[in-house]
């Protein structure tokens, strides 16, 4: 067990006020509980548009939102982009779901035809589609194994030539319903359309993020695994459900 005398692990929730639909809280809660069960203290800090930048962040997590929220967030992201990109370069782990995933790309053209600039952590572009891609989804990642979740997005995302996807689609639509890719990965930043929430039913992804955060402290996750029986059962059911 890691000594609890260390400073708590500082997790920053990006834009929880505007981007918190589809159970995004489940991702933050999973990181918090798993860290605690691994013997770590955790501190959760919110960053909303206009807030001063949270220093010493060790892990970032953020989710999806309504169009109206996305405009406010896109503006703030431009302002904090240099600091966020610096954190990416240092290897700080991040999880960006849905709306935030889109804004971590180069640009997002909404269904109404307006273009929101992204901050280019990922080399990808998103265009609002006419039809929503909705349903249970199963994907496979070379490093993180099978990832199960639920997707609900109208944006169609196409990855640039050199951009690594997070996973390939086993069943479901993924980034655009055509090329079989889902999400994106750059260094320790994971982007995905899977919510539902992503982390509770995918503890390997949660532990990946936590262990990368600890590595930056020169520490590692305790070797003893947590009991993930409930998550495994829930995964099996989710993977067997109709779209």
């Amino acid at each position, binding site marked *: 067990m890691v000594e609890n005398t260390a400073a708590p692990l500082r997790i920053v929730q990006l834009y929880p006020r505007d981007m918190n639909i589809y159970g*995004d809280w489940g991702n933050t809660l999973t990181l918090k509980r798993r860290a605690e069960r691994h013997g770590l203290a955790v501190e959760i800090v919110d960053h909303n548009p206009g807030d001063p930048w949270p220093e010493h962040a060790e892990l970032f997590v953020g989710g999806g939102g309504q169009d109206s929220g996305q405009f406010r967030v896109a503006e703030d992201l431009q302002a904090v982009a240099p600091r966020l990109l610096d954190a990416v370069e240092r290897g700080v782990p991040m999880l960006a779901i849905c709306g935030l995933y889109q804004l971590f790309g180069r640009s997002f053209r909404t269904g109404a035809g307006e273009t929101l600039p992204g901050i280019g952590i990922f080399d990808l572009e998103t265009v609002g589609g006419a039809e929503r891609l*909705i349903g249970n989804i199963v994907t496979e990642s070379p490093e993180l194994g099978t990832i199960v979740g639920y997707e609900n997005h109208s944006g169609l995302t196409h990855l640039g030539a050199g951009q690594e996807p997070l996973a390939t689609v086993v069943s479901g639509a993924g980034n655009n319903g055509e090329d079989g890719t889902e999400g994106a990965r750059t260094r320790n930043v994971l982007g995905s359309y899977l919510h539902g929430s992503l982390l509770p*039913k995918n503890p390997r992804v949660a532990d990946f993020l936590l262990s990368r955060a600890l590595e930056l402290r020169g520490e590692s996750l305790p070797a003893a695994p947590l009991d993930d029986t409930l998550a495994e059962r*829930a995964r*099996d059911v989710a993977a067997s459900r109709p*779209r």
Partner: protein
Amino acid sequence: MSRPLVRLLGQGVRWASSLRGGGSAFPGLFMEKLHPGFVAEELAKLPRGVVVISGTNGKTTTTKMTVQLLRSQGLRVFTNRTGSNFVRGVAASLLAEMDAFGRLDADVAVLELDEAHAVHFVKQVRPRICLLLNVMRDQLDRFGEIDTTRRMLRQVALATTETVVLNREDPRIAGLAEDLPAGTGVSWFGLSDALRPMFPSDDDMRDGLRQVDPGEQDSQVPSTQRPDADVVLRAVNARTVELEVRGAAHEATVDLYGVYNQYNAAAALAASLQVLGDDADVPALVAELGSVTPAFGRGETITVEDKPLQLLLVKNPAGFRLSLASASAQDYATMIAINDQYADGRDVSWLWDVDFDSLRAGGVDVVSGVRAWDMALRLDYDLVRVGTVEPELEDALKQFIAQSGERPMRIFCTYTAMLSLRKILGGMTHVAAI
């Protein structure tokens, strides 16, 4: 074709389709094809017009209460049956209610319409009054986004000819008042400042680890700076509520589970006042609230093995949170049944937007349904102890009843889980027909 003939044909189809057990919308579909303006023409004849009730949560209960309040004042009320809320379903209900001479014996129609269907309906029939309850995240996999839902309700408000009755405390609903054309009246129903924190909007739900606790979450405008409401729910006691109706204080018995149902009663009262106008007998209406009973799944109590069992429908985060907050967890044996059939919504991610902390002290006895393991996982991350996880509803229910001891029982369940549980309970005890 002549009108009476069309109608008689429609009624004949209704009779024939009831013989073969056909769906309730089929005769309506037939009428719509033969005579597309049928519903609009019939409803336009009603002396007190059409009332449309819509919103994400509480439509069924509120419609039921509004109908009862108006009938208690002597009005003849036409309403639609639960589950048939298309234009077509309304047509089918109309045919069923008409006599052989094609007369609809009613003064007013009170119709429950969900957001998407309401938009189509008001293109054909302009309501005199609409009552808009709330916009919450619900069934997003069908409607897409909460802003879309708001736009749908806006169209209903714009189509209304006389008065729009709005929830002052829901920012998305309250904002509609600014869009109305000159000449359309607004009537508000609302909450006292003391009660407002019990009804967090979706926007307030999740900022960091902060719980939505009284006083703190509510940085909104105090009631003195908000518009005056015709009906204000002032306080909620064990079995009574304090209401302010057009400025005067009243106490009413409202024997419904949960403060959100009591707020629905305030909404129903506000709409009824608009329908009745100067004819309204306010003390009698308030007294009538004491005899309203919950609609299907909104807290109906079934007696099984001499113990009360409540079935509580849950379908979105705000509703689940309010339902949990409405009773002290330690007083009940608790079961949760989550299905993910189409009618429930396939997406169970909303469970992560509900706080289950209030169940920590008492735990949850049984978790069931197709997504039982998802629910158990959710509770585990809120540090809530779970007794049994049994996805099969019948086995789960039997274990739950056996384990509950002397405690009254409550089951939080999604729509299809509730249908199944009622059926299973029907084999054990008396369960009212839906």
